[in-house]
Each structure stands twice: as C-alpha cells, then as structure tokens.
C-alpha cells in the first residue's frame, strides 16, 4: 500500500512536468499518507476562510473566494497535494467582527479545518487573531495589509500576512513622489483607521515637508465634500489616497463637482478600475459612465492585474479560470484569490507529506522567503517576521491599460531602506501548479 501511494505521488509529480523532478514535492519522503493532524486525512486536507459574501463589503471582495476555489479545484483535478484533495470551506461574516468570531468558531470547532487561509479584513480578522493563535490553528495569508499579522510573531506565532503592508506601500509611494514630483504640494486622503494611519506614516518618512494637508474620512459616511474641499483649499496639486474602492469613486465624483483636478495617486486597495468604474456609474446614476475619469491616475501593484493581459501569470490564471471558474469574467479580485491559493499550495507542499499544524508554520518560516510565484517581489517570512511581500511597482493608468512607471521596489516596515528589486521576473510552471520540496528533507 505504501509503495503504491509513493508511486502515485511520484507519477503525479512527473505528470506535472514543471520544475526539476528530483526535488519534486514529496518525491523524497516515500511513506504512506497519514492523518497527521486535525483536518488532514489520508486523502484530504480541509482549509477554511471567512469573507464578506453579503452586505456592504461584498462587491468585489466576495469574488476572491471564487478565485481560490477555482484554483484549488484545478489542483485537485491534477492530483491534489501529496495525493490529498483540498476541501475548501468559506463562510460569510458580512464584514462584521461579531459574525467573524462565530463563523471561525464553526470552521475550527465544527468543520475542524487544518488551517485558516486568506481571512479577509482588519477589524474582522482581529476578532479571531487571539482565538486562532491560542488554539494553535495556522492562520495563513490574511487578506489585509495591516501590520498586525506579521510584525509580532512572538505573540501571534500562527498568523502570516501575505500582501504588501500599508506602511511599506506608503514608503514606496513617498519616495517616488520625492524623486519624481519634488515640487508637488501633496494632500493625503485617508481612511480613518490603521489603513490610513500606516500609509500616512510611510509616506511621511519621505515627503513630510511636501504635505500640505491630510484629511480623513470615516467609512460609512458617504459625504466626502468637506474633505475634498479642504484639499482643494490647501492648494494640493497631488493627492494620495489610502482608501477603499467606493471612496475612490466618491472622491472622484466630489472632485468633479468642485472642479478640482489634481494628480491622483490611489494606493493598491482603492485602485481596482473595473469596480471603481461600476461604482462611479452607480453613484452618479449613469452621469459618469465608466472609469475614464481615472485616466492618468497613478497606483501601486504587488500582483499582475487583468489590465496586463500579456503577463504570463495572468494568462495562466485566465486559462485555469476558464476551465474551473463559474464562467464569469476574470477580475483582479479573482486573480488575487488564485494567487493566494498558489502560495497556499506552495506552503502545503513545503510542509511535507504528513505535516502537523506546527510543521506548516515552520515550513513557511524556513523556506517561504524563497518561493517564486505571481507576486512581483518575494515574501519576508522568517522566524522574526511573518510579513508578506514587501515589494511594489508603480503604474499609471492610460486609457484602460496600466503602464509601469517605476519598477518593483522592495522595503520593510520601520526605517528600512527602499531598494530596487533585482530578481528576475518569474514565469508560471507549465501546468500552473507549484512544485516545492518539503522543507525538512
């Protein structure tokens, strides 16, 4: 039986064809699959997540798990991870932390998942941070750029970030403005929570003297007239926004009404042109038909987007989405989900054939920084940091396509330097499935 299992692992790895074969996932271990920890059986791994599938935060964000699901589905069709099929359960928290704690209780206590993967939102996920870490449940790749997930692995040893944190993003934006727009008078448009706060702290490290105004909005309050008017009155001709997509649309509409036309720079979170275009049409009741007002806008990227259809990763994910998705168009949110699922597969492969929950955490700490994937820059995972990727490029929206105006820069939180990322662009494996060796072999 054990021989047979090992043989199928090897043959499925061989069938994958990607990467070098002798370091293939699980090729070295040999033994049979065992139910090595909660949520793992001989032939399945159970993973869970919480997303806003209903309510105000659902547009956009509810598409992420569709991407994750499609990618896992594809991996399952191609033999799964160490011959285990991935059983992915995601539940709705409506972006309400009270609900998050209930559904995560359900995922951990009733569904008995092996790990939580990609739980979305800063206030929502904060509610379960302590619970997951005290129960010893790996809490991978939180979908939020808060510093909470990665800067204190001693307190939260099971939690890992994934996307670029808001402070590093702010620093990269700040340095770009200092070098390319040294005479600009900069206004900041910030969400009034740690998202805006971390971003502001990062930007101020480089252009504190250029900033003429910083205004804040409270999520839920849809009138941003006073804030935009204040920016206009301060004479700011360059506005950096750390805001969510709906406030990109609101700030654009308000600026149109006030006849205010600065250079806009929206951070990654608020820059999804497709969603902003839809929101603009909706909020203006058709008066603004699409995202054309965003023409010339600057933004940051840590992932290839659907605006770059020639990117090999986008093409690969497009292919997978067409075969395993629900037939709708591929969006940046689905792309985000698929990329995050890709990293998850890397982590599961690296954890070894019969991993415990602690093995998974140790694997990410030990080899996670070396993984190549769709992200533009590598992760910062180590024993001392659980921060995700620290790199971003900057691009300008011209028409409907994004043009890169600054290559990928990498940095870290605090006063770490910003450097240009000198690594090579990665290409996806031929079959779109990673092939990581186990970390302890």
């Amino acid at each position, binding site marked *: 039986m054990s021989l047979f299992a090992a043989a199928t692992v090897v043959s499925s790895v061989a069938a994958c064809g990607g990467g070098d074969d002798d370091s293939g996932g699980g090729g070295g271990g040999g033994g049979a699959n065992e139910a090595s920890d909660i949520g793992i059986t001989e032939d399945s791994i159970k993973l869970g997540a919480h997303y806003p599938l*209903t309510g105000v935060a659902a547009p956009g964000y509810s598409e992420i798990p569709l991407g994750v699901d499609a990618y896992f589905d594809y991996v399952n069709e191609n033999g799964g991870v160490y011959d285990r099929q991935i059983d992915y359960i995601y539940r709705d928290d409506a972006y309400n932390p009270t609900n998050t704690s209930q559904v995560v209780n359900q995922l951990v206590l009733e569904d008995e998942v092996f790990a939580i993967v990609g739980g979305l939102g800063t*206030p929502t996920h904060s509610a379960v941070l*302590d619970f997951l870490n005290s129960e010893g449940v790996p809490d991978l790749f939180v979908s939020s750029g808060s510093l909470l997930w990665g800067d204190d692995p001693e307190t939260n040893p099971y939690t890992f970030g994934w996307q670029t944190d808001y402070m590093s993003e702010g620093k990269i934006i700040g340095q770009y403005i200092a070098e390319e727009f040294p005479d600009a008078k900069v206004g900041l448009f910030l969400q009034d929570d740690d998202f805006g706060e971390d971003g502001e702290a990062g930007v101020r490290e480089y252009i504190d003297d250029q900033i003429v105004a910083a205004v804040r909005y409270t999520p839920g309050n849809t009138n941003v007239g006073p804030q935009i008017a204040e920016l206009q009155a301060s004479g700011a001709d360059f506005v950096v926004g750390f805001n969510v997509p709906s406030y990109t649309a609101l700030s654009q509409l308000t600026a149109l009404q006030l006849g205010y036309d600065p250079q806009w720079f929206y951070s990654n979170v608020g820059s999804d042109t497709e969603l902003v275009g839809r929101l603009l049409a909706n909020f203006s009741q058709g008066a603004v038909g699409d995202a054309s007002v965003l023409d010339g806008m600057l933004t940051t990227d840590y992932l290839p987007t659907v605006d770059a259809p020639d990117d090999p990763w986008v093409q690969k994910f497009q292919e997978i989405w067409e075969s395993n998705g629900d037939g709708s168009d591929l969006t940046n949110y689905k792309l985000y989900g698929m990329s995050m699922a890709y990293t998850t597969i890397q982590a599961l492969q690296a954890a070894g054939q019969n991993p415990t929950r602690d093995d998974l955490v140790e694997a990410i700490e030990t080899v996670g920084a070396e993984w190549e994937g769709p992200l533009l820059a590598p992760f910062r995972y180590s024993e001392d940091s659980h921060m995700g990727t620290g790199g971003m490029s900057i691009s300008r929206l011209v028409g409907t396509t994004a043009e890169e105006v600054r290559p990928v820069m990498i940095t870290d939180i605090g006063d770490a330097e910003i450097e240009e990322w000198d690594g090579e662009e990665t290409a996806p494996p031929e079959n779109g499935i990673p092939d990581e060796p186990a970390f302890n072999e």
Partner: protein
Amino acid sequence: MTDSQTPSGAGAATDEAPVTATAAANAPSAQATGGRSFLPKSTLLRHLLVLVVCAVGAVILLESTSPFRNSQFATLSYYAIAAGGLTLLTGLNGQISLGHGALMAVGAYTTALMLDVERGEDPLPLPLILLLAALAATVVGAIVGVAAARLHGPYLAGATLALAVGLPGLAIYFHDTFGGEQGMTVRAPRAPEWFTSFIDTVSGNPASGTKWLAYVGVVCLLITYFFLANLVRSRIGRTWRAVRDQDVAAELAGINLGTWRVLAFTVSACAAGLAGGVLAIVVRLAAPSGFTLVLSLSLLTAIVLGGLGSLLGALLGSALLVFLPPFVTDLGTEWGLNSTEAAQLAPFVYGVVLVAAMLFAPAGFVGTIRMRWLTMRAKRAMAASAGSTSRG
C-alpha cells in the same frame, strides 16, 4: 388591528392593537391560573425553583454538545440577555428602542477597557467587570431614558436610532482610547482552576476556553432572566403594563408616567450593558462595525418573532438569530449551491420567516401559543358551564 391604522385618538389605538401584539406579555400569575399548579405560591420561590431547574438543564445541555455548539450558546446568551431587556421595554412598557446595539457597545467597550491591562497585571475579577459594564450602560440608558420618556412612537424610534448610529462613531472619534475602526482586542479571561475541576467532576470533558465563555454567558443569562422575571411579576411590572395599555387611566390612578418610563429604559439598558460585556469577551473584540444598526434591528426582530413582552419569547427569538443562518447556509450547500449563494440564502430565509410570522402569528411564537391555549380553555369553560346549566 385596523384600529391602529386610523388615528382615532390614543385610547382607541391602544385598545386593541397591543392586546394582540403583546399577548405574550400578559402572563397571568400562578394564583390567577387556578389551583392545578404544583409550583410554590410565592413568586420568588417559584422563580428560584425554575432557576435551579434551568441551571441544571444548562449544564446538561452544555456538557452533551460539541465545542462549536457551546460557542453558539455563548453567542445565544448575549443576544438573549439584550433581547430580554428590550422585550421588557417594548412589550411591557410600550416604548420602542432602535438603540440597544449602542447600549451594548457601551457595555462592550467598558469591558474591553477594564480587561485592557498591562501584561502580568491582573485585571479586576470578571463578575465585577461585567457588573461595571452593566452599570455604565445603565447610566447612559438613564440619560437616554429621560429624553425617551417625553417621546412617543416614531419620534422615540428616531431618537434611539440616532443613538445607534451616533454612539459607535464616538469610538472612531476618540480612536486613541477606543482603538478607532479597528476596535479594541479583548484578551478573554482564562478559565479559573475551580472551573476546570468542576467540569472534570461533572462530565470529564476538557474545560476549554470556549466552554468557559459559554458558562459565563449562560450564568449571566440565567441571573438576568431571574431578575427580569421577578420584576415582570411584581408591582413594577404591573405598573409598566398599565402605562403601556392605558396611559390616561394610569395617570389618573396616580402613576407618574415619565418616572416609570425612565425606569423601564434604565432596567433595559442595564441588561443591554451586561449583554455587551458578555459579547466583548465572547467575540474577543469591541469594534464599531460590531455594533451597527443591524444589531439593534435584529434584537427587535428577535423579540417580535418570539413574542413581545415574553422572556421565553426573547430567548426563542435569539435562538433563531443564532441557529437559523448557519442551518440555512449548510442546507443551501447540501442542495448544491456554492458558498456565496448559500450565504446569501440565510438573510433571505430570515426575512421570509419574519414576514410569515407577521402574517400568520403576529403575536410571535409564545404569544400565539398562549392565545390558542387561552381560547381553548375559555371554550372548554364555556362548554362546561353550558353543560352544567343544561343539566341544572
């Protein structure tokens, strides 16, 4: 019911409508139901007996269910505590409040602040913290109650609505103290040793943190309901009912309407504060996004579904809030819907249940059953008396 839609004076409007809507609230006391009861005659003794039975039942329930069910019971307990207070206010005293979510926020933030101590230091004992949470909400409730006592119907709804919308905003405004949008993480107190040994003696189950929180919630729930039930059956409860049903008559009888309305609001706020405290330790977070208008409205739907004015109704309504959405979601997944569609099914089904209840059981579960039972008894009594007269 049509009376309530025609503005034919306050007296006419209250003549019939509340009688149906609050049928659940008008529980006759044991003395009035006649001699067939085996329960003690004294209200206090009777309630103590019920309390003990419920406590034993709760231990059996918590020990025979899975850890996940335990966590659901913890959730149920804070909804039910708040709903119990609200049903007393709305069902018994006739005041509406759309602001109970905000009062829960007061309790939750008080608890979060009290538990937010330096590592190594010991916070105050948990019962004291929860008591302080209830007290803080009581103070806020008394202030709001003074304003609320002067308002009626839609105006009162509007004023309390403002509370629900406005109060969580304070947490964002003073974000250095209250943690802003992100909220305050609550380090849930660990189970004490006597609890571990108690669970070990009773069932031998592992005494996890989840179980401890469920017990804290259930104990708070039982204590709250014990106090509320005694209040309902006392002179205070009867006065509240008098204020609700016939304010003119009540005033003529020497009842100061304002004072009694403020009192009802204060008691109700106290329960909401305790519920908020329990919520904070169960959810381990106090954040503005947890206390949206949706919370206040779900409490209101819970007491309406269960039966206005009835504590049992409030409990049943809260149970529906907690157990129905996951049940519907799982059912949806079984029917082959994907997780997103299944999740969207849950609020839809809850809405349908609410509409159906309003159409077919406007007095709520408890009210409808009680009315059926009363009607049946009246019919039997009439038949019996008719029989005896015909024989005689």
